[in-house]
């Protein structure tokens, strides 16, 4: 399903980024990095009107030749970016949405770990497993 999953802090530095090992990692880092501009654009475009609706899912950020990039932003402005293989056409918007929700729940658990300092890179086995399950489901 997903080929790369990234969590980006409010100040736009990466908290977590993992991609499938068979591909060039740097390429995905680059893809995620470029997507941040689109995320910012979407957030400011939504403006105040949509803030009340609490729609966290940003939808498709942009498609490339091989991949589709989806975004999600929490109320605390932490961004989740997911890169998906575009050959996988069976993937519906709803599934992406539920994957993000799963990711968000897992992220919340990480935040609640008393040994995790907010702002640090995420090093958690539980979170790793969640991400792995999302990547394996695809491959």
């Amino acid at each position, binding site marked *: 399903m997903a080929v790369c999953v990234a969590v980006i802090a409010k100040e736009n530095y990466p908290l977590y980024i993992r991609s499938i090992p068979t591909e060039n990692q740097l390429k995905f880092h680059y893809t995620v990095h470029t997507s941040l501009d689109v995320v910012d654009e979407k957030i400011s475009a939504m403006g105040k009107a949509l803030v009340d609706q609490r729609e966290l899912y940003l939808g498709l950020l942009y498609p490339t030749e091989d991949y589709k990039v989806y975004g999600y932003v929490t109320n605390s402005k932490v961004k989740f970016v997911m890169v998906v293989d575009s050959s996988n056409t069976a993937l519906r918007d709803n599934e992406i949405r539920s994957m993000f929700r799963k990711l968000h729940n897992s992220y919340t658990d*990480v935040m*609640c*770990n*008393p040994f995790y300092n907010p702002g640090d890179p995420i090093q958690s086995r539980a979170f790793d497993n969640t991400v792995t399950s999302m990547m394996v489901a695809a491959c």
Partner: protein
Amino acid sequence: MSRQTNRGTESKKMNSELFNLTYGSLVAQLCKDYENDEDVNKQLEKMGYNIGVRLIEDFLARSNVGRCHDFRETADVIAKVAFKMYLGITPTITNWSPAGDEFSLILENNPLVDFVELPDNHSNLIYSNMLCGVLRGALEMVQMAVDVKFAQDTLKGDSVTEIRMKFIRRIEDNLPAGEE
């Protein structure tokens, strides 16, 4: 905080996340304040002890349990009444020693550790060690010296949490032990 006036046997609901985060931040702060995990464990045990010696009064007042005649009865009360009242769980009692002076409390899920993952540099930390202190303190106030320690911990990869309790002796004189 105002003193509660109606202390019944009914248990009040409490938000488990708040409880978890409160205990978690306490342990995390202790880890910052002390250099090695053994000191943190000792400190948690001591805090638990101080809770236990007070909590037993509350427990006896609210639960209306009578005097226990043997250690097995004590074990039952701890698991079925005390844990139920304060943590909302009922551990199972197993692994009695042949002499009947030692048993294990098995906690299927420990309510203290919902979100916790031990970091690699705290592998010796016994996160829930306060429970041991509480049990030791409480039983000491009812003239029982016990030794309480963790035998298994889900945080360390075991499938269940096991607290091992060993009866040492009856405390004969009723003089209160010195403040620790």
